[in-house]
């Protein structure tokens, strides 16, 4: 079957449209939430790239943005808080023919799930991780998050946060991610370009997406980002330049960069895994051992 098509009836192949990736229910996000833009962008990109819903698995954690799989037509897993990458690694390695996409928030990915981000990055699991970063805990009604700016007043930091936020860009580069990018929900065209590159990338791709929370974060809203975001490609940034990527990633002030900071080719975990040498996904293999396998295993005991 050609990419970008799915069987509607036995004789007719149809190009999927963005609306074909709409889930069974409408999102229950607050009006104006940045997550709408991310969802619409992924639906558009999926259609354009010819992704097939049944060969795709979207894995989320817990949080506003983690309701994502319910709004997207594909296989989906709405898992535990912070465990997107562990679950997604299991899915991908069990069936590496699937397109695996993780969707979750900054608290989920950089806070409670931070350990998995480090290790999934270095393992170079072939998947795309979209972090809908709103710099606040929204579903729990507004507490400080790992990406909240120093000084930010929230319900859990009424006198202002004294902590330094995590930098997902430089952290991911240091952790060994092979594709590190940032985008802004308020610029869907650019977001879609970055998403496409991320999904096309063979290996672990992370896209930190500014997805403003209009209800609980009044510091980092659309008005904050619009004048600040600058596209790396407009400045001729070389995404193969590790040092430049780190330098651009550290920038946070009047200029905040979006685009692909860093991209490098390195074999992904499924390409390196010896048990996958013959190419058949684990999930498609027969469970039963052959008599020859059984005999060899038993003979080693003697």
């Amino acid at each position: 079957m050609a990419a970008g098509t799915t069987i509607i009836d036995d004789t007719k192949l149809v190009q999927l449209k963005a609306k074909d990736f709409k889930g069974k229910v409408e999102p229950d996000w607050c009006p104006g939430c940045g997550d709408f833009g991310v969802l619409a962008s992924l639906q558009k990109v999926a259609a354009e790239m010819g992704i097939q819903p049944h060969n795709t698995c979207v894995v989320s954690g817990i949080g506003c943005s983690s309701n994502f799989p319910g709004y997207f037509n594909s296989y989906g897993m709405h898992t535990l808080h912070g465990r997107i990458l562990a679950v997604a690694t299991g899915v991908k390695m069990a069936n590496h023919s699937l397109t695996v996409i993780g969707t979750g928030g900054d608290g989920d990915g950089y806070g409670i799930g931070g350990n998995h981000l480090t290790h999934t990055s270095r393992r170079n699991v072939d998947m795309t991780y979209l972090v809908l970063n709103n710099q606040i805990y929204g579903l729990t009604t507004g507490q400080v998050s790992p990406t909240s700016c120093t000084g930010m007043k929230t319900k859990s930091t009424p006198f202002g946060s004294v902590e330094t936020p995590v930098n997902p860009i430089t952290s991911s580069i240091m952790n060994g991610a092979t594709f590190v990018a940032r985008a802004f929900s308020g610029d869907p065209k650019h977001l879609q370009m970055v998403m496409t590159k991320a999904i096309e990338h063979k290996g672990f791709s992370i896209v930190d997406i500014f997805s403003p929370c209009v209800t609980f974060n009044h510091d980092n809203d659309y008005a904050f980002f619009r004048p600040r975001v600058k596209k790396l490609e407009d400045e001729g940034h070389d995404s193969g330049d590790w040092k430049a990527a780190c330098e651009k990633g550290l920038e946070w002030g009047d200029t905040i960069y979006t685009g692909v900071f860093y991209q490098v080719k390195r074999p992904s975990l499924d390409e390196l895994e010896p048990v996958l040498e013959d190419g058949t996904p684990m999930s498609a293999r027969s469970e039963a051992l052959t008599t020859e396998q059984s005999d060899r295993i038993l003979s080693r005991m003697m």
Partner: protein
Amino acid sequence: MGTRNFDFALAIGGAAGQGIATPGNILARSFVRRGLHLYAYNAYQSIIRGGHIFLTIRVSDQEVGDHGDKLDLLLALNQDTMDRHLGLLGPGARAVYNSDTITPGEAGEGVQLCGLPVKELTNNDRNKLVQNTVALGAMMHLGGLDFKVLENALTLQFKRKGQEVVDQNVAVGRAGYDYAVANFAAFPDAIPTGETPLAVWTGNEALAMGGAAAGCKFYCAYPMSPATGVLHWMAKNAREAGIMVRQVEDEIGVANMAIGAAHAGCRTMCATSGGGFALMTEAIGAAAMMEVPVVFINVQRAGPSTGVPTKTEQGDLWQMLGASQGDFQRLIVAPYDALDAFNTMAEVFNLTDKLQIPAMVLSDLLISEGTFSVDPAKINMQPTIDRGKLIREGSANGGEYKRYLHTDDGVAPRAIPGVEGHMHVVSTDEHDEDGILISDEFTNPHKRRKNVERRDRKMGGLEKEVAAPELEGPADADVTLIGFGSTIGVIREACDQLRDQGVSVNHFQVKWIVPFHAEAISNVIKNAKRTIIVENNHSGQFYRYMRSETGLDVDGHIRKYDGEPFMPHHIVGCVQEQLAGETTHSVPYQEIMV
């Protein structure tokens, strides 16, 4: 089991790093090759060098389920071992040691001291491990074995290191053998031969092989004693058995990765000990809510917390029963020994696939790190594999698919990602038949109730699908001993000893915790004259569970929680003191300091 005509126990003691494993392996292999049964228990500590390690190997012409009560032969590799154990040797026992470095203390009557002048015999004072081979030579003579047995074993052990190493070891072993022939009396009964050659495996190897045979295609773990042996077997055999093996950053990651792989269609398992299991528990609830079948193995060690990492206990039963928040369905099984652990894996994989609920296998250090002899003919590497209502193929025009359809038996057909026409979301939030969340916007108490009841229907009549515990011994016995899981061997042997002492006793051992054969067990308790529960923990975890499920009490308790396993005479002594009316709650005294 037939009459035990031959029953011989030897122990090797020393510090970590003194090379106890090698002579232990050589001896164990030599015994099973002769067709003898054995069980080996290694008492050790969480230390790479130093401490005190004490390996007990009990050999018999009949099956062996515990390490017994007495020692016939002690090989002391250091002074500390001699000081700790010599006084516990009884008449007829032999103590073998390097007389250059070890001074025996006061030996009991009838104990033969077999000092070996290692330096003189080997012209070697550099390689400290040489004393082990000299001792092995001497032990061949003491056991009435031909030196050829050791020569073959040494050749097998060292052939990878080259002929020179083999020759050196054989020469050294020969020197020990010849010296023993000239100076020590052999045991009156020579070590016999059995009918067919056997093999050895640990409980962890059996669990791993059981998983492989049951079609496990994805194994992930974080190293943790005493469960690491499962990971080692899996890693070593992954390519042969076609299993993907992943070492993950923590047990939270392990459990969640396992869920991902299982949801994608692989039979998946993971093993850990209590601390790692604690980290997994949130994910176990997730597996239950999403209805993804995964097998979780908990190899118990003495807790709480880091506890005593290298010691055994049956202290995690309530952790399994209470693992994860909420009210959900689970399978819990506590296998008896290595072969039973092997067979349990196929059974539990079939059940977890059939019911789409998480399964927990409750092993412990005693089984998992114990070495058991096994007849390879009894290992069925191709058991029945039944994946239940699994959908692996479909088409886009197959009609509406509901992942959580309200079926009569509570189990809905499960499609895996990649199947056309069956897209759905599995979620840890409560959800409707079609997977849509009813936890947020669409909260609905009636649907919630239906879901809870649908999931619970899976458990209806489930106990009929697993074997009920069987009463061993006369139905009208004066004493009924009750145990669960790994204590089966030692309780059986205690029963034999009690019968020899004129006590009428029977025994039943429980393996399935959930589902629980409450009715069958109630009948046994109601008809028993005096019931005594034997368990390897302090608070009577199994007793309290059994009482909650049957509403019945028992007459006495025997509990051990010092980290060391029961020996048969511990149970015998406790039963006798309870029969004498001294107490209803016995705690045996651990004589051996390890």
